[in-house]
C-alpha cells in the first residue's frame, strides 16, 4: 500500500523549534516568543503543567493548569534552518521543577509566617519530636520563666549549638545578657508581659517558638542544621497548598496527604519521619492545632486558610481552574 501525504516543509524557525519541542520534550511545552539575532533565531519555550486537587470526602476534583514560562530555549541557525542548540530535556525538567518549587516555597514561606501569630493559638509544645531539636530554647526559656537565670559560662558549657539557639531568644528580644559581671541571661519585659498575659509556661513557650520559627525557620534548617520541624512544615504545606488551589478546606486521607508531600517536594528526599512515623506525626500536627481530623480524613483550619487564600491570586495559572 502507498499513499501521498502533503506536509508542511519544516522551513520556518517556529516549525523547526516546534518539531524539536515535540520530538524531545512533549506536547505540554509551547513556543513563547522568537528573538532574531544576526545568524540565528532564539525561540523561548514555556511549559504547562496540570495539578489535580481532590477532596476525598465530597469526591470533588479540581484541575489547575499552571503556565511556567522560560523553561527552555531553542536556537535555530538561519543559514541551515537547523537546530543550533536546544535546552537538554534534563535541564528543561529541572527548570520545570524549579518553577514548581517556587510556587511551593511561596506557600511554605507564608504558612511559616503564620506560625508567628499568637492569636492563631498553635501549640508547638505538642510536637514532641520537633522540641528535640529546639531543646536549648525550650530549656532556657523554661528556666527564665521560673526566674532561674543561667550564667554565660553555664550556657557556654553546653556547647556552641546551645549558645546559637539562645542567641535567637536574644535576637527576638525575649532574653538579654546582663551588663554586670558575672554575665547572666535574664528574661526581658517582653517575656514577662507575655507570661503574665498567658499565665502558663507552656503557652508562653508556644508563642515564642512560633515567633522563632516564623523568623528563623530557614536559618535553623540550613544554618544550624536543626531539621526536626522540617517534616511537620512539609506536611502542613502540602495540605494547605492543595487547599489554597482548591479555594477552600478539603478533607483527604493520610495516604493522599503523604502522596501530596512526595509530589510537592518532588526531587527532595522524603524526611524519615514522613516515611517511618507518619501517623504519629499527623496526630502531633492535629494536637498542635495546625491540622484537624474530619472523621477518617485530615482537614485544616478555616482561619489559617483564610490567611493564606490570597496566594491563589498570585499563582501562575494558565486558565481558570475547572471541576470534574
Amino acid at each position, binding site marked *: *500500500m*502507498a*499513499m*501521498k*501525504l*502533503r*506536509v*508542511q*516543509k*519544516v*522551513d*520556518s524557525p*517556529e*516549525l523547526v523549534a*516546534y*518539531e524539536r519541542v*515535540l*520530538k*524531545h*520534550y*512533549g*506536547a*505540554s*511545552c*509551547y513556543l513563547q516568543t522568537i528573538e532574531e539575532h544576526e545568524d540565528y533565531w532564539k525561540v523561548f519555550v514555556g*511549559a*504547562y*503543567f*496540570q495539578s*489535580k486537587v481532590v477532596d476525598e470526602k465530597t469526591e470533588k476534583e479540581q484541575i489547575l*493548569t499552571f503556565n511556567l514560562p522560560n*523553561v527552555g530555549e531553542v536556537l535555530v541557525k538561519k543559514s541551515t534552518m537547523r537546530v543550533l542548540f536546544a535546552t537538554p*530535556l534534563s535541564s*528543561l*525538567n529541572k527548570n*520545570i*521543577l524549579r518553577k514548581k518549587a517556587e510556587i511551593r516555597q511561596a506557600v511554605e514561606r507564608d504558612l511559616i509566617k503564620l506560625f508567628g501569630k499568637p492569636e492563631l493559638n498553635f501549640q508547638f509544645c505538642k510536637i514532641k519530636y520537633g522540641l528535640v531539636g529546639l531543646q536549648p530554647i525550650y530549656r532556657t526559656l523554661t528556666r527564665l520563666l521560673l526566674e532561674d537565670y543561667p550564667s554565660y559560662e553555664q550556657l557556654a558549657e553546653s556547647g556552641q549549638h546551645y549558645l546559637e539557639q539562645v542567641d535567637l531568644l536574644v535576637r527576638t528580644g525575649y532574653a538579654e545578657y546582663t551588663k554586670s559581671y558575672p554575665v547572666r541571661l535574664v528574661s526581658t519585659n517582653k517575656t514577662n508581659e507575655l507570661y503574665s498575659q498567658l499565665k502558663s509556661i507552656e503557652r508562653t513557650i508556644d508563642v515564642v517558638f512560633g515567633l522563632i520559627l516564623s523568623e528563623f525557620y530557614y536559618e535553623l534548617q540550613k544554618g544550624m542544621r536543626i531539621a526536626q520541624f522540617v517534616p511537620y512544615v512539609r506536611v502542613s504545606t502540602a495540605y494547605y497548598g492543595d487547599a489554597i488551589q482548591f479555594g477552600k478546606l478539603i478533607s483527604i486521607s493520610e495516604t493522599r496527604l503523604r502522596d501530596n508531600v512526595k509530589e510537592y517536594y518532588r526531587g527532595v528526599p522524603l524526611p524519615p519521619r514522613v516515611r517511618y512515623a507518619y501517623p504519629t506525626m499527623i496526630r502531633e500536627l492535629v494536637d498542635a492545632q495546625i491540622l484537624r481530623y474530619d472523621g477518617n480524613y485530615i482537614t485544616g483550619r478555616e482561619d489559617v486558610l483564610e490567611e493564606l487564600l490570597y496566594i491563589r491570586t498570585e499563582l501562575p495559572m*494558565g*486558565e481558570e481552574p475547572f471541576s470534574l
Partner: protein
Amino acid sequence: MITLPKMIDASGNDCVVACTVMVCMYWRRLKPNLSWNLPLEFNSKEWESFYENGLKYVKMSGMPFNNITRFLKKINLPLDARLEFLEDMYGLRNLINLNIPPIVIYDRNYFFKNVQGIGHAAILVDYTEELFISIDPSMGPKFVLKLPKSDFSEAWKLKHNATIIIHPKTFKMRRIEIPSKETLLPYLHKGGQ
C-alpha cells in the same frame, strides 16, 4: 469509520501513550498476519504491561515523540511512527479514508475556551462535512468527542497541525513537502509543484 478495539482511560500527559497503544491495538486486529509479539486478546497482561511500559517514557514536559518511537522499537512491533505537520485537514480526511487513524495534537483548551494551553492528543476515527469524530482518552466512559471542523482547525493550527501517524512498516508513504509562505516564491520560481 475506523473502529478501535479498546478504549483506554487516561488524563494529563498520559494521553499520547493511551492513543499510541489504542492505535497499536487497532493495527493488531486489522493486520493479524504481520509478525506480532502481542496477543489478540487486548485485556491480556502483555498489553497491560506494554501500556505501563509506555507510561515510563512520559516526562514532566509531556511525552517526547522520540520516546514513542523508542517505546515501539523496544517491543519490536511491525509498526512505524512518524510525526508530521500536515498541510491541512484534507490530509486527516485522506488518512481516515485509508483507514489509518491519525493521532492529532491540538490545543484542547483553545478548542473549548479560546484560551491557549496544553497540547492534547486524540485519535480521529471519522468525519462528516462539518465535524471530525475523535476518540479522546480523557473523555471516558464514552470517549467520543465530536470536533466541529472550524473550531478544531484553529486549535490544531496552534500546534502547527502536528499529527502522529502510526502505520504498518509495509506501508509506503510519499511525503510532499509544502514550503511555508516565506519560502514559497523561490520554490515556485524553481519550478516546484
